[in-house]
């Protein structure tokens, strides 16, 4: 077995163990939360018989190890169970909401890159104390603004002033791109603010470090323009730390869109899981967490592989 295959197998093993631990943890945590499905769903003065019938209907009083093994066994085959509230397969319920979450995460990530990289670049290479000072302050503000505050502020603006954005009213991107962006952009901006801060910080630090490298000094001495230095040396060499942060941020966004989805009434996975948690819809929460964890693990693995593409030295080290 080659070095690279061993490396891949090692990562895969870690990924599977991670998923197994998460599966146990989420199953256990959901069952430990006070208030069962029957408690939450039925009226407070529901008769004990009605409560018992509902518990019996879904086998919620079966021994927990048996419930877990049954669920985990099915999950391995791709069957995440059936939602207690809707009676629909969890996988299809998640699938029908995934487009909203993925688009939000993509847009949020894009906004973070579009704002964070240029500003971080300017902050890293500028010699003007005023510019770098302003960028540092802006960076701190972005990092310290909670997404719930940004979202609430945007909802307030939309509900108070005539602006070309909507709260809710999501249309699929290819059905009505304008309506889609009117609903998606404020939500994406909500989740992007933190990402802008992260990307900006990382880019600024990486660029400043690379700008001090001897080969950059040599390029300057050769008379290369600032544009050439940025294109040929700075951008490529600073991309690895930026990509690392961005990947973690993107993976976080797959679960982190929840605030935006709730505030803007968007029908994504995050809001669905929040509702499911409130309803104690165990299969939905378990399935969603497992899928999000799998996506996180997958993105991490893809990023590891991308390191090698962006910086051949890393690929060589991994393979040796």
């Amino acid at each position, binding site marked *: 077995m080659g070095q690279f295959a061993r490396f891949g197998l090692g990562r895969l093993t870690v990924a599977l163990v991670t998923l197994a631990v998460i599966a146990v943890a989420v199953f256990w945590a959901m069952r430990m939360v006070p208030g069962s499905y029957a408690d939450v769903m*039925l009226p407070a003065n*529901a008769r004990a018989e009605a409560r018992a019938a509902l518990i019996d209907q879904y086998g919620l009083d079966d021994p927990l190890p048996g419930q877990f093994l049954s669920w985990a066994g099915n999950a391995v085959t791709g069957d995440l169970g059936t939602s207690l509230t809707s009676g629909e397969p969890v996988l299809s319920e998640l699938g029908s909401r995934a487009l909203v979450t993925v688009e939000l995460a993509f847009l949020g990530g894009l906004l973070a890159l579009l704002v964070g990289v240029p500003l971080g670049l300017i902050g890293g290479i500028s010699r003007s104390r005023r510019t770098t000072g302003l960028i540092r302050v802006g960076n701190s503000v972005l990092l310290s603004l909670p997404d719930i505050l940004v979202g609430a502020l945007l909802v307030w603006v939309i509900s108070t002033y005539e602006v070309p954005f909507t*709260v809710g009213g999501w249309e699929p991107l290819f059905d009505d791109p304008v309506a889609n962006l009117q609903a998606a952009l404020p939500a994406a901006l909500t989740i992007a603010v933190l990402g802008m801060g992260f990307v900006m910080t990382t880019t600024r630090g990486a660029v400043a470090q690379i700008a001090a490298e001897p080969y950059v000094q040599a390029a300057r001495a050769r008379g290369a323009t600032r544009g050439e230095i940025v294109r040929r040396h700075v951008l490529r060499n600073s991309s690895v730390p930026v990509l690392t942060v961005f990947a973690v941020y993107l993976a976080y966004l797959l679960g982190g869109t929840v605030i935006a989805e709730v505030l803007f009434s968007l*029908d994504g996975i995050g*809001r669905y899981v929040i509702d499911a948690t409130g309803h104690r819809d165990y299969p939905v929460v378990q399935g969603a967490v497992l899928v999000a964890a799998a996506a996180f693990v997958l993105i991490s693995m893809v990023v590891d592989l991308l390191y090698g593409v962006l910086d051949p030295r890393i690929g060589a080290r991994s393979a040796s």
Partner: protein
Amino acid sequence: MLQDLFDTPARVSRRSVLRGMLVGSAAISGSGVLAACGKREESGTTASTVADAAIQRGGTITWGKQAEATLLDPTTGGVGSSMELFQIVYDPLIAVDGELELIPGLAQRWESTSETEYLFTLRDGVRFSNGRPLTADDVVGTFERYLDPRMASSLASFISTETRVAKVDARTVRFTLPAPSSTFLSAVASAFAVILPMREVAAGSIDLSKQLLGTGPFMVKSHKAGSGWVLVRNPHAWQEPIADELAIRIMPDDNARIAALRDGSIDLTYFDVPDAERLLADVPDTEVKVQDRTDFYALVLNATGRSSPFTDQRVRQAISYAIDREQIREIALAGTGLPTGAVSAAFGDVAPAPTLAHDPEKARALLAEAGESDLSFEIVYPGEAFGRIAQVLQQNLSAIGVTVELGSLEEGVWVDRVYTQRPPKFDATVSWYAAYVGPAQALNLWNVDISPFAFQVRDARTQSLIERAQQAPESEAEEALRAASEAIDVQASTIPLVTKNATIAWRTDLIKVEVDDKDGNIHPLRHSPEYALLKAA
């Protein structure tokens, strides 16, 4: 003696219903009002709506609904978010108007032949949305299902499971009660007493926990759990809607609904938060109506723990005397709601005022008598409005030297600690209860045999007074209600505070709607068949 109490589509009052319990009382309805509440087209309200040149037929009305209907079978679905939907897709035998008066629903008329027997005559020509005619068998089957003890239905809290339901002929059904009941007719008007398609249920062609098939103005076209519903005109509806579609968007966040109302992506919505009217003040082209509801907030004291100070009735009464309901109304509920006792104040004159009215001096004296010089406890609550009430209670109790800590709980945790665990794990909580459309219905909350909350105090005298109030003939009804209400107040374990209103808002430039002044069935869209889009200016 057969006596018509409720002739064809007559509008009758709650008092008349109570009077109807008496054999030999005067007939109430007059022929002059027979046509008032028949098919929608015949009613005055609808006629004026249709005649309005500004409205258009067809189109889609969009409702921003704050919570998903999670239980779809009316048998056990006695929760508000589901009841809202049931009453659009299904119909009960008896409906309720905007003054909480009983009016014909699927029953064209009903009459009492004795204190314990009622005959219902079904409206002619009613069909389910699949085209099948409604029959007396559907009504009999529906109530047999609801009153089957194994089903543990919501309705069985209000109508004895020993009630017998029998088909008399194709359009007539007889109910025989084991004992007189002043809550029977109002219970028949409940959202969880709607008539189900029992032939399809019996044949196994419909699963009521997943599908809705009724006689109401709209029927379900599609549903995405947690996201929304698309209801379309029921082509066989006896109350034919003006709009083609009613789209429901589930939008739990209040601010999101306000923003959606502003940008026109929803046409109407409603709010539980008391200050909604203020929040909506700046939204243009929007009308806001605060609807009086019979529901009420209550302070629940857990009197069951051995070490609980609330095992001493004097302490509970002291807490009750310390409460300033007017202050709760003004500060916590933005001036909405009515201070109430055990019979919801929304029922008007028939509701007695709270017996232990605000009197801090008496409160202090009772605490001193009970030897409680340093009382402190925690009030837990499940949401913002409850928290505001708890804060006012904290101030009220501070004025008599009682220290209160407040604790906000996630709703499921709160339900578990208050209603599920035995013994319950809380000192006190702010909760709310539905009082429906009959003044004696909510008394069930204090009937420990029907609502076996573990925190309740069992008191034989109160129990017997509640039962008497729920069986009393009309001549004794008001006095029986007063006596039961007073006994409940004096027990002071679940202390009613203020009625819980709803704020309904709609875009006046987009749709024409009618909203009732009062509601007891959590039915904000009672007039949905009459909702119409306005023609573009």
